[in-house]
């Protein structure tokens, strides 16, 4: 068995002194492709064109080498010796190579295909998350109950304190103005979010009075240079109000501060007796939203006293 590159075979005489007769060695063989291999000097059998044999790849298959040796050039009388050899197939023509190639190509195609699907899914997912967050924020605000309760408080001010009433109306309209402007965006500056939050908290504080206490301490240097998905702080404060008791006896304290590369939102815990239906959905959306924006996670902590959310600050 010879490997496929073999295009030359050499025949040596077995007897001593035989090699001397080599110039007269006559051999001929015919390959499976019909090409004639001829014997040449020194017992070498090669393809019929000597000049090209070096680059010729013989066809795979069984070969029979006929050798006749003669001391006096009377080859016809000399006995013929047969040598059988096989040239094996090039590995790229073997069935297992075809099989593996097909498998490899199929795997690569499959991988590219799956990768593409994943990208499309991720894009769709991003869109969905964005939509969900906007939807949640809008639902809660355009939620007529927020408006009805605000109007109820407003009615009281209109009669007793028209000046205060006009400020409340200003904040109500500012809040809705910003809500509609920002909710379509992917990111807004921290400053924009804080302005929206300011109006929202003004309205809520008017409703709850001293039962709702909020302190905000944000590094002014980063307000214009850092980004946040719209309505995140508003949703977090709203969640705090929604899930906890807000009463004069048990006020709700919310604090929003910057701590290195995080915005930390904490609120005192005093859960209501009945859990609200949509619990956790808003927070889950915020987490998913951040997952798509940055490698840093939104962290959630809870102890007996406080509920804490840490949002990574996003810079350009």
């Amino acid at each position: 068995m010879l490997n496929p590159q073999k295009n030359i075979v050499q025949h040596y005489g077995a007897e001593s002194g035989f090699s001397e007769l080599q110039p007269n060695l006559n051999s001929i063989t015919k390959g499976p492709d019909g090409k004639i291999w001829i014997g040449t000097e020194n017992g070498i059998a090669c393809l019929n064109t000597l000049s090209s044999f070096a680059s010729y790849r013989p066809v795979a298959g069984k070969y029979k080498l006929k050798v006749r040796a003669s001391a006096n050039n009377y080859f016809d009388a000399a006995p013929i010796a047969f040598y059988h050899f096989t040239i094996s197939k090039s590995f790229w023509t073997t069935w297992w190579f075809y099989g593996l190639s097909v498998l490899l190509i199929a795997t690569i195609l499959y991988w590219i295909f799956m990768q593409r699907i994943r990208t499309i899914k991720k894009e769709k997912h991003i869109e969905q998350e964005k939509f969900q967050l906007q939807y949640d924020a809008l639902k809660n605000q355009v939620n007529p109950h927020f408006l009805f309760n605000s109007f109820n408080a407003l009615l009281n001010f209109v009669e007793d304190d028209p000046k205060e009433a006009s400020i409340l109306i200003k904040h109500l309209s500012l809040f809705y103005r910003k809500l509609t402007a920002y909710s379509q965006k992917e990111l807004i500056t921290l400053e924009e979010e804080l302005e929206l939050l300011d109006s929202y908290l003004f309205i809520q504080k008017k409703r709850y009075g001293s039962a709702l206490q909020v302190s905000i301490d944000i590094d002014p240097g980063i307000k214009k240079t850092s980004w946040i998905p719209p309505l995140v702080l508003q949703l977090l404060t709203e969640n705090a109000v929604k899930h906890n008791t807000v009463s004069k006896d048990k006020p709700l304290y919310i604090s929003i501060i910057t701590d290195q590369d995080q915005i930390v939102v904490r609120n005192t815990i005093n859960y209501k007796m009945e859990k609200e239906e949509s619990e956790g959905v808003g927070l889950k959306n915020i987490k998913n939203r951040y997952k798509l924006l940055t490698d840093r996670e939104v962290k959630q902590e809870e102890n007996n006293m406080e509920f804490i959310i840490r949002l990574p600050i996003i810079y350009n």
Partner: protein
Amino acid sequence: MRILILEDEEQALLRLQKMIFKVIPDAVILGTPSSIEEAMAWFQNNPMPELIFMDIQLADGTSFQVFNRIKITCPVIFTTAYENYALQAFKVNSVDYLLKPLMKTM
């Protein structure tokens, strides 16, 4: 008339009190608990009032919890921004269901 008001929002409470006095000048507001907890404490120390105004979303839960804990024997008027509690309100001894913002009907 001896009246109890369950309400957690400051402005809503002020508004309701003002409207009550307009309609019933001799009304006596016995108390204004803002949570179920405060309300329970009030009921333990006071006799049943003649009328109760109840906001449904109180500071620590819905005011239906009050009915699960004690027997309310006087009429109740619910005040809320939520219209979807009306059926539940109907099952307890309510006489009216007022939607916020509260306004005097002509």
